């Protein structure tokens, strides 16, 4: 375990170094990317669409940032296992380690971008119903959930090479049917089942409820549901890996 963590840290740093080494601009871009996306959306929905949500900037941050983390991580890690076929074929390397370092790399970007946005938003925002000290909990749950989904989909992508395309397509649709830029209360009752069946919604909602409109009576159940979703994905991923790990070497 200790060895695994040490290897994970070195690989993650090597990963980041390989990605950003050419320019500092590389790293700044990775951080700036979600910030720009967030700012534009925030302005469009507040000033142009005039969405009726109090303190919309904070609300959007709670939903959009974890969403960007989810999509960026999935898009990077899903093809990674197949793309590393030479490396996996060459040496005895834990394939799961390769996925985890992609997830961690993105996670660091997410945390940095979050902090960069958080500071001005909290200074200029009059909103006080927040519980930032509780954030590590939903973030941890989110991290576990994304690691599980990434590893599951990445292994699937080895056997079914179009997994990444299908998933990108699904994620594009999910962006609109997950309450990210609108609150769940806006969704008419007869369409609520779509939201209820959406696992990503639970992961995001737990995070958001600590950032925006904090209410312990809502936060803890939301965290419980998110934990359940993460655990479910971790279990499925574990079973799938156990069953198909051998076949990995046959298909790459």
């Amino acid at each position: 375990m200790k060895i695994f963590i040490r290897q994970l840290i070195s690989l993650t740093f090597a990963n980041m170094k390989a990605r950003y080494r050419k320019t500092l601009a590389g790293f700044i871009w990775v951080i700036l990317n979600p910030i720009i996306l967030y700012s534009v959306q925030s302005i469009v929905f507040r000033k142009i669409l005039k969405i009726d949500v109090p303190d919309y900037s904070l609300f959007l941050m709670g939903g959009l940032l974890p969403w960007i983390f989810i999509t960026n991580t999935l898009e990077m890690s899903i093809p990674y296992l197949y793309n590393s076929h030479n490396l996996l074929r060459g040496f005895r390397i834990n394939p799961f380690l390769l996925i985890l370092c992609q997830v961690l790399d993105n996670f660091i970007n997410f945390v940095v971008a979050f902090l960069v946005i958080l500071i001005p938003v909290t200074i200029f925002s009059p909103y006080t119903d927040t519980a930032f000290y509780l954030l590590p909990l939903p973030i941890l749950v989110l991290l576990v959930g994304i690691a599980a989904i990434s590893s599951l989909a990445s292994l699937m992508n080895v056997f079914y090479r179009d997994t990444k395309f299908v998933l990108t397509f699904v994620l594009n649709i999910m962006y609109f049917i997950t309450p990210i830029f609108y609150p769940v209360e806006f969704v008419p009752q007869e369409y609520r089942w779509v939201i209820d069946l959406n696992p990503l919604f639970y992961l995001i909602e737990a995070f958001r409820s600590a950032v925006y409109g904090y209410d312990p009576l809502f936060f803890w159940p939301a965290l419980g549901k998110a934990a359940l979703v993460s655990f479910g994905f971790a279990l499925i991923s574990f079973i799938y890996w156990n069953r198909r790990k051998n076949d990995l070497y046959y298909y790459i």
Partner: protein
Amino acid sequence: MTSTTTSDSQILKVENLSLSFDLDLQKGHTVRDVFVNLLTHPLQSVLGRREVHKVLENINFELKVGEKAALIGENGSGKTSLCRCVAGMILPQQGTIQRKGNIQAIFSTASAIHFSLTGRENAFLLGELIFPDLNKEELKEVIEEALEFSELGKFLEAPFFTYSRGMQARLFLSVVTARPTELLILDEVYDGADEFFQIKMQERMNKVIEKSGAVLFISHNADLVGQVCNRAIVLSDKKIIYDGKNVTKGLALYKSLHGGGYKTGQ
């Protein structure tokens, strides 16, 4: 299971090993195919028998200290899969593998961890992955020695993607053989390296296993096998058909399988 007595000189004991892979091919190669199949033949896709591809059947052999065994067989006869089982990358469905000590295996040299990082950085990363028990100082010592051995000099600071195949082979072979090991598995990894380096590597290989080690060696170069190995194991159609000290005989048997066609003097 029969009782097994492991003598001191035994490095590896493989018993009744069988291996197969799941083939989903008839069910489609893509998620979209799977989805369409689920809709058009729901029962068949869920309950349909999985097709299984057998790779190895009832393999038994041992390796003792000082043995340099060549695994010989045509493409697809299961040589690499067998080595992957021994290296612990694949878990066979049946059989047991008893290993003693440390195993180092290399199956391909054309693989950087990050192509845009330098050769030196890649070597250190690889070292960290394949020698997990070393601490920072020990690792530095081992890798620095390997880098020197590779004779890549100033190229070590160049990004890995600028390396030729031979340079890649030099770097990774040097790292993998940087420590004394009980079992060294080399799977067709000499191909890129030039003759001078091959000779140098053979000496190093002997040194690596001289204390208490053995080698499993796969190569399609008959001359090299004849030079390096003191034992031959011939695989054909999932089984071992020859296992003995007479390497020339093993090679001849292999050649006779297809009436020639074995590359010599490459």
